[in-house]
């Protein structure tokens, strides 16, 4: 414990107040963090997860089971993502804005969608993960009907026209492909050797991936038809009232079909492990990956291990306590970061190292040494407390600062799970002890790893050089 005189008066006060808050809490019937978790409901066949903190802005997202894992042909997910909010031909010049008129559902052009969203101060984004395609709108609370209608229209009434594909979609995809860097390629390669198909599909195809023969407006339209059905989507709302949602989702999502004739590729994930090395000019990247924790899996020790490995310093002027940041402080020019990528039926715990080739090599060796030190020497009580606190913060801030929380809630719903139960997960994290952590690290090192090296292969090490089994 830190001795009291070492603390400033401010922090002493804060500590005292914390105790006082605990005392005050004891008096009330415990309500376990009411706004922290998404509440799942079903509104006329549409799966909805919502959370309302009464704030002035709302984030509404459609999370569709159309991530790269489910694409039948390479590149279709990115095609569908770029086609979002481009909705066919212009019409109806005298449309008036406002919730009353919004009931007259008509097709809008991409330009009209942009201009109307701008007038209402909204933000429209489309992005994808390996499992989900997310169409998100952030807007002022009172504009819920307009954006509910818009999102429903985008998934049910978009026209996948040839000219829009050639004039707008294709160029954007080429530009984004050119931006795929060594770090992204290494992460994709690690997923590819870890899971082969499904989750192993690249998140964004590189310029050398042959997608031209698979990706066109017709294949994208067929994929949209299979993916945008009531069974495959979830609507996630953060900051919208339950009554508003049930009032507006019902009429606007009527046009979304409940099932589709064509089904999505859906094979269970299996972990293989292995090694891949890709020569590339420019920055270097290495990913060392192990089987991790799936979404909703009861594996709190993985989250704590990620907190312990850490990597990026979260406080200024100090490398921090985490093992990876200590390891990389000796190797200037390289950064390392541990992450657990959680998917519906599998997870991947990765250590990603970026930087110059020689620094990456040294950092990779140090990182594996750090992991081995957890197995051999265990972890000190102080570091364990810090790692648990970090894991708790990661979880809570992830679910609170929307983004990951929104996507996870939706992904859980479309895969038939429950949204993250924050209070229970926190309790599980607090129950992790040094022994459990040691055992978890041991199983990782004894199992097969997935190692990907991208960059200067003359310098970057093989998995065997690092002492990993592949």
């Amino acid at each position, binding site marked *: 414990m830190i001795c009291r005189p070492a603390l400033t008066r401010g922090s002493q006060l804060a500590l005292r107040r914390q105790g006082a808050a605990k005392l005050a809490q004891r008096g009330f019937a415990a309500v376990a963090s009411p706004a922290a978790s998404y509440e799942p409901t079903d509104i006329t066949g549409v799966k909805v997860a919502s959370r309302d903190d009464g704030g002035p802005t709302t984030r509404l997202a459609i999370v569709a089971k159309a991530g790269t894992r489910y694409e039948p042909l390479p590149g279709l997910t990115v095609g569908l993502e770029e086609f979002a909010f481009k909705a066919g*031909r*212009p*019409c109806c*010049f005298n449309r*008036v*804005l*406002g*919730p*009353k*008129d919004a009931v007259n559902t008509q097709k809008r*052009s991409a*330009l*009209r969608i942009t*201009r109307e969203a701008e*007038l209402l101060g909204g933000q429209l984004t489309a992005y994808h993960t390996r499992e989900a395609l997310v169409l998100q709108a952030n807007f002022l609370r*009172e504009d819920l009907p307009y954006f509910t209608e818009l999102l429903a229209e985008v998934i049910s009434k978009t026209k996948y026209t*040839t*000219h829009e594909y*050639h*004039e707008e979609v294709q160029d954007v995809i080429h530009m984004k492909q050119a931006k795929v860097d060594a770090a992204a390629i290494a992460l994709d390669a690690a997923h590819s050797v870890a899971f082969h198909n499904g989750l192993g599909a690249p998140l964004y195809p590189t310029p050398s991936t042959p997608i031209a023969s698979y990706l066109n407006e017709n294949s994208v339209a067929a994929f949209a038809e299979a993916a945008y059905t009531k069974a495959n989507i979830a609507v996630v709302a953060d900051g919208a009232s339950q009554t508003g949602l049930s009032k507006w989702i019902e009429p606007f999502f009527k046009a979304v079909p409940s099932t589709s004739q064509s089904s999505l590729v859906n094979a269970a994930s299996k972990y293989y492990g292995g090694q891949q090395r890709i020569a590339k000019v420019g920055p270097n990247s290495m990913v060392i990956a192990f089987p991790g924790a799936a979404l909703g899996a009861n594996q709190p020790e993985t989250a704590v291990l990620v907190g312990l490995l850490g990597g990026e310093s979260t406080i200024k002027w100090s490398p921090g306590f985490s093992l990876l940041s200590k390891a990389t402080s000796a190797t200037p020019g390289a950064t390392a970061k541990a992450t657990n990528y959680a998917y519906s039926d599998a997870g991947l715990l990765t250590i990603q190292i970026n930087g110059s080739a020689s620094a990456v090599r040294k950092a990779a060796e140090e990182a594996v040494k750090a992991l081995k030190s957890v197995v051999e020497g265990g972890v000190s009580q102080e570091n364990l407390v810090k790692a648990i606190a970090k894991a708790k913060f990661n979880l809570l801030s992830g679910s609170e600062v929307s983004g990951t929380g929104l996507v996870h809630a939706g992904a859980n719903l479309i895969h038939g799970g429950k949204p993250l139960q924050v209070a229970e997960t926190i309790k599980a994290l607090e129950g992790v002890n040094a022994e459990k952590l040691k055992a978890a690290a041991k199983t990782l090192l004894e199992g097969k790893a997935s190692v990907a090296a991208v960059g200067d292969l003359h310098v970057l090490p093989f998995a065997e050089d690092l002492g990993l089994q592949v």
Partner: protein
Amino acid sequence: MPIAPTLAPAAATRPWLMKLLKPLAGWYSNAAGYRQMGLLGDDLISEENETVLKALHRLSPQQSYDRIYRIRRATQLSLQQKILPKAEWTKPEEDVRYLTPILEQLYAEAKEKDALDTLTVFKKH
């Protein structure tokens, strides 16, 4: 007005007028002479124009190829001061508008953009 002003829609709503004008229109199209050179009506739209160029990009590869073939053949015929043998003349039922619908779509897009650029917002809520 980008597309030539026309009374055709007004005539189409009045069957008696349509019946009266249709033979006249047919006679006019034949007399214009482009069908004798194997062209379609939409081949005559001048392409020195941004919008038409964009519309031409939106044609399918087959349509685009056929268009170029017809124009080259007509240029050759014009050079030789000839017309095609009668069997190869464009038949009235073959003379479809393949470019006009795309042009109309492009003009509608431009009109919508213009309307949105100069719009006045009345807040109803």
